Each structure stands twice: as C-alpha cells, then as structure tokens.
C-alpha cells in the first residue's frame, strides 16, 4: 500500500472538493491511501510552504500550485517533470487532456503539472440593487462605461450601499483581467522589457481610477468586500468564477445574485487570464511517483472536473468533463450562474508568471500600485510608472 500526502491551497474553495475526489479515488484505488497536509490559505502561502519544505521529510508528495507560480517551482527544480509520464501514458487526449489544457501547466518545455482547476474573471451583480437603482437586471452592462454609469446610480442609493467591489487586492490577477482585456501584456515577447506600462496598462489603471471617482468604488479589504457583497450592500463584484459557489452559499436567499461576462476594454483583441492551479508531483520516490501520477490524472481528469466545477465555480479544464453527460453535460443548463465563466473559456490565456526569483515581489508591486490608484494617492500614470520602475529592477538581468 502506498500513502500519499496531498497539500492544497484555499480550503475555502477546495476542501469539500478534495474530500470528495480523494474518497472516490481511494474507492477506485484501494491500494493507495490519501492523507491531507494542513491546507494553505492561498496560493502564495502554498508555494512558500513547498519551497520551505523542499527536500525535507515534511514535504508533501503532491501539491496544487497556482498557475502563475509553477514557473518558480520549475526554476528551482523542485517538481517532477511529468513529460515522461505523459509519454508513457500515450493517448492523453482520450482522457480529456487536450494540448491546450496541458499547455496551461507547462513551463518552457517542461510539463510541471496538470491543470486542476481553472477560472476566469467574471462579473457578479446584485439584481435587487439594480432594480432599486432603476436598472434592468436582465440587461447587465456589457462595457466598462456602462458598468461605471450603473455603479454611479447604485452608489447614489445611499444607506451604506456601495457600488463596486473590484478584487484588485492580493494578486495581480484582476489587473491582468483589465490589462489582457485591453489587449496588453505584462512583459515583452522576449521577457526582457516591461510592457504593462504601455497604453493598455494606462487604460486599465485609468479605468480603475474611474471606478473610484465616477463609479464610487470604496476601498475594501479583500474580506470586507466579499462580506459586504454577500450582505447585499454592493452592486457589482468583479472576481474569479472560482468564488461562485462560496458566494452563492454566503448570499443564501438574501438577494437575487446574477453573473455575467466581464467587459473588456478591447472587445476585439482583449483576452482574459486563467486563474487556478495545477496538480504537481513532488515525491522523488519511484513507487510513490507512480501512485501520485494516478492521483494527478484522476484529480485533473473528468471526474475531478465534474466535482470541481459545481463545487466551486471553476470552469472545466477537461474537455471530456464539459460535454459528457456522464459528468457536467446536464449541470450548466440547470445552473445559469455558472455559465458566465464557461462562455468566456475561449478568451482564456495563461496567467502570466514573471521570471526570476522576485516574481512574488513583482506581483506585490503591481498590487501596491493598484492600491495607490484606488486610494487616489497617485494618478494612474504615476502609479503605473512607479510599478514599472520597480518591476524593471526586480526582473532578472
């Protein structure tokens, strides 16, 4: 018998899902026993833990790493390259792992992991507040200008009602949503030059500033925003589809929750970042590796997806799961809130992972710049300039 220690982040989203998957997996593979390490609160803490424990006895056998942090692990050579295993497996496509999907967890030419849960940013809105503000909840705004106009009307309701909760805190992901949506990129093609300080970046920050100035968006901490939205006190919330299930739970029947596509500044070329994580194998023990590979395939495979999607709100990362009636075929029609994310799948591009040792700092620099914009302590141009300067210093030379 083999025992695998599995570590995962964000138990808020994944605890039930993981319990479910591991139970089913152990049922199908009675020779393998799954044990969970204490989950980490978020992707950053998850990767820290793995880095700290790398090479020690405490290191788990399998972990789930944020898609933008795979590069860090890979550069430090902590993970097992799945390439040979995939090769041995032969036909991955039949299991639902298309090349696009495998690509999400590939760094360079190394297959670091298998994408487990993927998400994209969507718009959540409070239909009751829409109605109160004289807006039509069935016609959600499709452009950012419309969003800001609607937000201004919701903000005018008073009585502690806020307009927008745009989840710029914590990571650069929602900034990417604006930047990619405006057709921009983080760095130049060869990854030597900063590119987010171009027009697309400026437009993104300008938009953020308009949300505050024209749309009346307040400064929220991450949790305060979520709570206020759940309390029915916020009109719009822009964040990952991954939070859908927990939002639904938190809202209960307090108000009429709706979702819609997130607008893009450039409707033509705009793309959206892929959030989520990939299952990564860490163990160097051959026997454990074999078992881990079975678990990785299972978790990232159609059954996993069929649990993850309804359990969280993530979009299916497995082609088979999305369509097969065995898995999610019947789910989407019955759960319209989940469709916003599904519909945007074609727009998903990888969450950009910065090269070098300082990638966490780089993302923090961008978050700090966003904070300055939201607080109005710097103009969008200044904030962007400062972030770009900082990032330039932090990139490997």
């Amino acid at each position, binding site marked *: 018998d083999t025992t695998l220690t599995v570590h995962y982040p964000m138990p808020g989203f994944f605890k039930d899902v993981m319990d479910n998957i591991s139970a089913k997996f152990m049922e199908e593979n009675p020779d393998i026993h799954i044990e969970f390490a204490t989950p980490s609160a978020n992707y950053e803490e998850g990767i820290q*833990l793995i880095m700290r424990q790398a090479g020690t006895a405490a290191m788990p056998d399998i972990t789930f790493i944020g898609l933008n942090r795979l590069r860090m692990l890979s550069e430090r050579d902590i993970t097992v390259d799945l390439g040979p295993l995939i090769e041995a497996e032969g036909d991955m496509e039949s299991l639902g792992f298309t090349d696009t999907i495998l690509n999400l967890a590939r760094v360079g030419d190394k297959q670091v992991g298998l994408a487990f849960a993927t998400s994209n940013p969507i718009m959540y809105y409070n239909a009751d507040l829409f109605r109160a503000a004289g807006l039509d909840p069935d016609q959600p705004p499709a452009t950012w200008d419309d969003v800001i106009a609607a937000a201004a009307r919701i903000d005018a309701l008073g009585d502690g009602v806020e307009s927008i909760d745009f989840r710029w805190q914590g990571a650069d992901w929602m900034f990417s949503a604006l930047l990619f949506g405006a057709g921009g990129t983080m760095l130049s093609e060869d990854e030597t030059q900063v590119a987010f300080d171009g027009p697309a970046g400026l437009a993104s920050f300008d938009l953020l500033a308009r949300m505050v100035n024209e749309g009346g968006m307040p400064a929220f901490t991450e949790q305060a925003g979520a709570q206020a939205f759940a*309390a029915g006190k916020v009109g719009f919330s822009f964040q990952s589809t991954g939070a859908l299930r927990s939002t639904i739970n*938190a809202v209960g029947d307090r108000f009429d929750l709706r979702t819609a596509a997130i607008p893009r500044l450039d409707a033509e070329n705009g793309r959206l970042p892929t959030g989520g994580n990939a299952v990564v194998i860490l163990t160097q023990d051959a026997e454990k590796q074999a078992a881990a590979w079975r678990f990785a395939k299972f978790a990232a495979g159609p059954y996993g997806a069929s649990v993850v999607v309804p359990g969280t709100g993530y979009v299916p990362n497995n082609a088979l799961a999305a369509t097969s009636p065995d898995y999610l075929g019947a789910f989407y029609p019955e759960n319209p809130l989940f469709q916003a994310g599904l519909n945007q799948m074609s727009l998903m591009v990888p969450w950009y992972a910065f090269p070098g040792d300082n990638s966490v700092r780089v993302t923090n620099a961008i978050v700090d710049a966003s904070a300055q914009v939201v607080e109005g302590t710097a103009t969008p141009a200044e904030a962007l300039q400062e972030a770009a300067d900082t990032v330039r210093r932090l990139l490997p030379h």
Partner: protein
Amino acid sequence: MSRRPTRRFSVARAFRLAILIFFAALFLAPYAFMLSTAGKPQSEIFSATLNLFPQTVSYAENFARALSRIDIGRLLVNGVIVCAAIFVVQVLVAIPCAYAMAKLRFGAARVMMVMVLLGLLVPIHATALPIYVGFANVGLLNSYTALVAPFTISVFGIFLFLQFFRALPDDLIHAARMDGMGDLGIIARVVVPNAWPAVTAFAIFSVVAHWNDLYWPLIVTSDQAYATPPLGLLYFRAAESGDDYGALMAATLMITLPLVALFLLAQRKFVEGITMTGLKG
C-alpha cells in the same frame, strides 16, 4: 487612593465606577459580538443593522457546524499537550537556573545575567529561520518536538524566578543546609513549595503566549495532526473563506474559553505572584 476604599456612596465613586464600566464595556465589546455572532444564523450576521441579540437563536447549529468542520477536540488536545510540555520543561529548566543565579556564588553568574538580559530581547521571530533550517535538517518538522523544543528555554521565566528567589530570605536556604539538604533538596523542598505565586504567574504568561502563538506552529507544522488552536482557527477561517461567521465565532469561543477559565481560576494567585516577583520593577 489614600484611604481604605469606603463602601459609602459618593459622587466621586459614581464617577469612578462609570468610567470603569464604560471602559470595561468597551473592552468586552468584541466578546459580546463574538457571543452574539456565534448565536446568529448566516442571514443575520451580514445584515447592515446593529443587533446584539440574535433574532433566531442558532447556537446549536453554529456549534454543530464548527465541530463538524474542524476537529476541535484534537486542536484542544494539541494545545494542551504543547502548552503543558513547554511549561513543564520551562519550569524544570528555569527554576534551578534562577536558584543558582539568585542564591549561589559562581564564576559564570555575570555571563548568565548578560545572557538572560540578551535573551529577553530576542523574539522567536528573529531566530525562527535558523531553527527551522536546523529542524528541517534533522527531520523534526511536523512533530510535537518541533512545536515545543525552541520554547523550552524561557529567559523570561528565569528572569521572573530570579526576581522572586532574590526575595527569599538567605536564612531559609541556610537553615535548609543546616538541616542536611543539598541544593537539589533545597530546590525541591524549600524553593519550589514557596514559589507557587511565581509559578502561577509564569504559568499564565507561558500558557497564554504559547496557546496563542501562531507564528511558529505555522512554520513548522503542515500535518493537521499537530495543529494547535490558532492554526486550526486560521485554517477554519480560510476554509470558510471568511464567510461562515457564525460557526467561526462558535469555534473561536470554544478555543478561547479554556484560557479565560484558566485565568479566572488563577487570577488572584497571578496578581499576587506578580506582586511578589518584583516584576513590577
């Protein structure tokens, strides 16, 4: 201040009491909300109206949910094991050391004093990295040893006992010697039995500090089997993505309660201990 406080009513007294009650209410407010939230259903918590008393009393539901989501029993047991082990070893190490420093003459006394003063300034945060690296190298991560070992030396404890022992009359030690006791005998039979106030005061400090410590357990444990109360709570908080406040508060209540009870039990001795240890200056 000067006179023995009188029980008679006076304006000054009413004023004093009013201030005290006001501040006490302020200080207890978070607990009031904790208590009230632990009894509220989800729908009442995130409402914008200020209500201390739950409309629908849901203590049972919230406690049940908290108990089903995290293994509170395990957390409490771990907390007790870790705190007890730390405390016992700290006392076993600190008392002989403080006794020797207070009552015996030896060459290294000055060095020890400098070490104690230095040690008082070094928080675990400062030395966590190397200790972590060391523990990782010997494979001690995820063990009670890892949780306990770095705290077995309590410089603060030595300092506190030192102050206390200095106040013990030399004659008492001399009498014990004349009665035929060795140093260990003196410690066990004379010093410790008379050091209870100091031990109690130290117990409160030690247990409060380690029961509540988040930093170190967060670093050295990833196995839930060794989770201490704050880790469990942190995990629970994350697991509920900060939303299930009712259950969260119920869990918080269950984890806070033992310590509050401990303090209530020991508070008189505690204040006495502080008074007698010369901790006051």
